[in-house]
């Protein structure tokens, strides 16, 4: 017998389905998939000076990964990127979770003011954030040294943004300061979705606030934490703006703050007397894409499938 009622007849619904999907598909293909595929295509070509672009197969990849100078630069930027990511994972996200946990306490005064203040830096332009922190940390004009002086630690102050050992970590902290609002917001929203009766039941059983958070709330928001992690990963490996705003594309001192984004920019567009090389630049970009893809696949297959979800 034919179906009746609200069941969809897909043969009749085909046209509307296509019509609804088409705009997004077309726009996404035109502005995301096509440029991505084309930049990968670009990485298989090379242009000799004054000549026409010619297909060179994997030569560009061989240059970037096997030439000693290129490989050193590339892996240096890769490891710097890993450090940048590690600081965000180990500092930004735990702080975000902790702040979200505190904000969702049942009797907290000025909750909205705190929330606004914590999310505020996220809304600032990266260039402004870079500029403000350069001023704060400036050894000439900065308030950083004076603030440390108040608590008697002035001797610890140094030109952190200019030292090889500390420049990248300092920049990572600046980035954490700016972006901590994102994990905070996402996890806070997930925490709010937890029904009160679960918490009430635990409290009746004698659990403290901390125990409620640790044993009840946190396991329930793990899927969100995992999503925040993968967003952090993708965001960090695509990062460029803060480093460029503060240290320029040569990412000094001695490439201590060079990440893959700045390496790509320097290679693709050139810098000062160095002319841009779109083909090698596209190669670096494709390698960035592969690294991010590997990370996301690892997340999808190794992490996401093992997460237990609870129907609340």
């Amino acid at each position, binding site marked *: 017998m034919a179906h009746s009622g609200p069941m969809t007849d897909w043969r009749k619904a085909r046209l509307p389905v296509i019509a609804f999907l088409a705009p997004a598909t077309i726009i996404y293909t035109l502005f995301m998939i096509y440029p991505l595929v084309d930049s990968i295509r670009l990485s298989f070509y090379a242009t000799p000076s004054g000549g026409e672009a010619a297909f060179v197969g994997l030569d560009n990849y061989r240059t970037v990964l096997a030439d000693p100078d290129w490989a050193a630069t590339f892996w240096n930027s890769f490891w710097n990127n890993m450090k940048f990511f590690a600081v965000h994972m180990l500092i930004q996200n735990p702080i975000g979770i902790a702040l979200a946990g505190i904000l969702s306490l049942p009797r907290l005064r000025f909750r909205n003011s705190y929330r606004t203040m914590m999310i505020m830096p996220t809304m600032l332009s990266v260039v402004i954030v870079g500029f403000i922190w350069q001023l704060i940390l*400036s*050894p000439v004009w900065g308030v950083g040294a004076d603030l440390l002086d108040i608590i008697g630690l002035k001797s610890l102050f140094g*030109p952190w943004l*200019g030292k090889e050992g500390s420049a990248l970590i300092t920049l990572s902290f600046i980035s954490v300061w700016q972006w901590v609002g994102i994990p905070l917001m996402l996890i806070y929203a997930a925490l709010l979705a937890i029904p009160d009766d679960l918490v009430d039941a635990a409290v009746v059983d004698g659990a403290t606030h901390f125990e409620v958070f640790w044993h009840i709330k946190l396991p329930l928001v793990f899927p969100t934490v995992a999503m925040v992690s993968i967003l952090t990963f993708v965001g960090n490996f695509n990062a460029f703006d803060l480093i460029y705003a503060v240290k320029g*594309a040569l990412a000094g001192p001695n490439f201590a703050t060079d990440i893959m984004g700045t390496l790509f920019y320097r290679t693709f*567009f050139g810098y000062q007397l160095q002319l841009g090389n779109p083909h090698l630049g596209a190669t670096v970009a494709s390698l960035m894409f592969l690294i991010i893809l590997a990370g996301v696949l690892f997340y999808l297959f190794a992490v996401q499938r093992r997460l237990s979800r609870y129907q609340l």
Partner: protein
Amino acid sequence: MSNKVLAKGLAGALAASVALVPMMASAGELVIESWRNDDIDIWNDKIIPAFNEQHPDIKVSFTPTPPTEYNASVNAKLAGGTAGDLITCRPFDASLELYKQGNLTALDDLKGMDNFSDVAKSAWQTDDGSATFCLPMASVIHGFIYNKEAFEEVGVEVPQTSEEFYAALDKIKEEGSYIPMAMGTADQWESATMGFQNIGPNHWKGEAGRKALIDGSAKFTDKPYVDTFTELATWKNYLPDGYEAISYPDAQNLFTLGRAAVYPAGSWDISLFNNQADFAFGAFPPPAPAGSDTCYISDHTDIALGLNAKSDNAAEAKIFLEWMTGSEFAELYSNALPGFFSLSKHNVEITDPVANEFVSWRQECESTIRNSYQILSRGAPNLENELWNLSAQVINGTISPTDAGAGAEAGLAKWYAPHQ
């Protein structure tokens, strides 16, 4: 009804905007691409109005990009066909490559081109000199600007030799009320441009040493270059605390606020200092070691203007370029921008005393240009970028002068046959 009106209005607005876009671009307005964003007022208030007095029908607009982004953005714009009509030319390879790619027009038949000497044109010619593709505008000279009041207060004289120079810096440091030298290494380029290329010519004997590097008879591991790095390494004793994180604008401000005695300068700093410093300042050339019979200065061919080969307004652009070869522009430019010295043969009177001081060194000393610019920055790794990194590291003390020389040489040997 209202929907219909709205729809008609929207359609009208859309049609108007589509029609307006090409009109805006084709109204014969010349667009100048430049990295000199500091000069926007001078172009808008002085140079363009002076041009419009003679050619009121040609509209010109000056659209600069920040210096560090200029090359990348202009290359991308030229490739995408959205660049302005007139392209400010970096010296040597960056512009040569633009010419080879067919982005710049040869200007040899431009009227007034013979107002420029061969040396002036050399930075914007093909290697065989057969085509000139940019109109030379100006050179910049390196030296040291000093705070006259600070020198008087501490009781030091303008140094004549490098021994006197470092003795003076030591004395200023000991006295303690001024930072001896205002510079930082955060932006890296000052270390190379105001440091290495400023004091270097006295070590490598100007043009002789520069040409020797190009033909391969001298190497960065040779004494003159290592000596330059060694001298540079001593600068860290005179720089402000935390110089590793001090940027170029920080250093400029330290000097104009009167907190530093000496500032390693490019002559282009003069106009900013004229505006901001409320004390008298002077300049001296990089002092040579005692007993040297000649002094050498970096008199760098820095800036020129080329014609975008795909310009829709080529005829108007040529009129503008021809006007630029005249004495009026030379006079206007050299005086509106003290510190940029016209490369034309016109006899230009420079009214600014400090700029005049800089240009007077051309008589006493031998001129040369920065040694990394011609030919040597053609390959990868890029010599200019290497010198930025190495010079900053030498001052930071994270690499020895010998290793810095070896590093620069290794980079060059990687791709440049005369050094292999």
